[in-house]
């Protein structure tokens, strides 16, 4: 888990609001974060799937990377900043359209995943020498260190984790946020714009971590808190904790860094080969390129798969996977899926056992429990394409 307990937990700008809302707070990624509110994990999960859930993700690592030359205008500026970040990630960043965002992975020299992150090319003409990047909270010090070291003298990193970053997710997210930002309804999945409300600028992106339609919004501490308070006044909106965030993303088949992704796992093994676009496969130039190209050609030895326990017992992270009495893999995320109304899990198994429908056994408390390899996601994604 990307869960680092600390006696000196930081607080997000929304901390006082969480306390007001009856949050149960736990240490997570160095912050005191709400794990649940009074409704409980299951109800918060189901609320997000039917209404709109508001998540404080201010513990994450939003930042801006800009050309050290200060050049901000024109497609050439974008190409230049994209070429810099492409030395660290395998995705086609040059090919992003203005206002387009893309999931990618930060790689080590052996093609293992150091973090997963979202990189956005700003829409605005005067920000073309800039990238908006959001990394995981528990990994931000590592990632930002890598950016600063690798790109020293060429790009400048500006941390933006002193404000408010929140996600509004669920079928009512568009109508709720659209009441304040009419332009947000025009965004498609993985598109982003700067929008102004009462003189305050926010970065609004149509993305999320639940499998639902929704938005992530970055603003200053004061303006962000005021907006969150405004949104919570809407009867469709409830605050949602990390507990439901985890069960929502698990049902949606989305990876959690530190559990499903780690420095020894390649994007091909993780089922994230799709983040490596055609041009990058042809031209390479990213860390661990030889392993990754080999795995793309020959197939990886192990693969991330969905796992459907066939009995009611959930299989948690660390549960061993067996086929015919032989170990073939490990559960990396598992629990109960309130929308599926059954236990759900994902993990890594040997490539030969990775086909959906493959019968496997999960060793839960020393007893083999029947399960099968299942397609991901467990619930259909409802992104607005």
């Amino acid at each position, binding site marked *: 888990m990307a869960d680092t307990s600390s006696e000196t937990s930081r607080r997000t700008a929304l901390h006082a609001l969480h306390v007001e809302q009856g949050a149960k707070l736990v240490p997570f990624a160095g912050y005191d974060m709400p794990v649940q509110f009074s409704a*409980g*994990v299951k*109800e918060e999960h189901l609320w997000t799937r039917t209404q709109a859930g508001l998540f404080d993700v201010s513990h994450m690592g939003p930042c801006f990377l800009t050309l050290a030359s200060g050049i901000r205008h024109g497609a050439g500026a974008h190409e230049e900043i994209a070429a810099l970040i492409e030395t660290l990630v395998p995705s086609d960043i040059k090919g992003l359209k203005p206002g387009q965002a893309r999931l990618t992975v930060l790689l080590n020299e052996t093609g293992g995943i150091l973090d997963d992150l979202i990189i956005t090319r700003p829409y605005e003409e005067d920000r073309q020498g800039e990238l908006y990047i959001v990394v995981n909270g528990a990994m931000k010090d590592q990632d930002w260190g890598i950016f600063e070291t690798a790109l020293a003298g060429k790009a400048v990193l500006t941390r933006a984790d002193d404000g408010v970053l929140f996600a509004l997710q669920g079928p009512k997210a568009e109508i709720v946020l659209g009441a304040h930002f009419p332009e947000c309804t025009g965004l498609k999945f993985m598109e982003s714009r700067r929008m102004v409300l009462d003189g305050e600028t926010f970065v609004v992106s149509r993305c999320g971590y639940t499998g639902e339609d929704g938005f992530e919004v970055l603003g200053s501490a004061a303006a962000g808190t005021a907006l969150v308070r405004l949104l919570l006044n809407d009867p469709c909106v409830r605050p949602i904790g990390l507990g439901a965030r985890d069960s929502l993303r698990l049902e949606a088949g989305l990876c959690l860094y530190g559990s499903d992704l780690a420095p020894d796992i390649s994007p091909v093994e993780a089922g994230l080969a799709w983040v490596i676009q055609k041009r990058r496969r042809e031209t390479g130039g990213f860390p661990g390129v030889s392993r990754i190209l080999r795995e793309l050609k020959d197939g990886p030895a192990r693969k991330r798969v969905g796992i459907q326990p066939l009995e009611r017992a959930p299989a948690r992270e660390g549960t061993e996977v067996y086929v015919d009495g032989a170990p073939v893999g490990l559960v990396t995320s598992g629990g109960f899926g309130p929308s599926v109304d059954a236990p759900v899990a994902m993990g890594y198994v040997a490539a030969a056992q990775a086909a959906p429908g493959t019968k496997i056994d999960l060793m839960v408390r020393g007893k083999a429990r029947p399960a099968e390899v299942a397609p991901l996601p467990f619930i259909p994604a409802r992104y607005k394409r």
Partner: protein
Amino acid sequence: MTTYYTKDHEWIRVDGDTGMVGITAYAAGQLGDVVYVELPETGAKFARGDDFAVVESVKAASDVYAPVSGAVLEVNSVLTEAPEKVSEAAESEAWFVRVKLADTGELTELMDEAAYAAFCKGL
């Protein structure tokens, strides 16, 4: 019949040398939505403090400890089909097992209702 409580939030309702065992409403509230209960086999023997059952909530799996030493006479099969009963009726319908006590003397080590209420208040 008298009900006794442990610091680990189990209860035992004793009638002679048998007792019904479950987890307290306080514990159920802390666990959140219960989605699975793993119970022992009838006839299984436990020493006081042994883990004899597991409760899984949406959040996590938690062990349940035997409040006294004894043998399982009966398990509550209702919980297999309807684990959510633990969240709704922890101290009545959602009992886990009926046990035969090995040593009723162990009960003196447990809390009565008033002592347990005070214990929870201090948490």
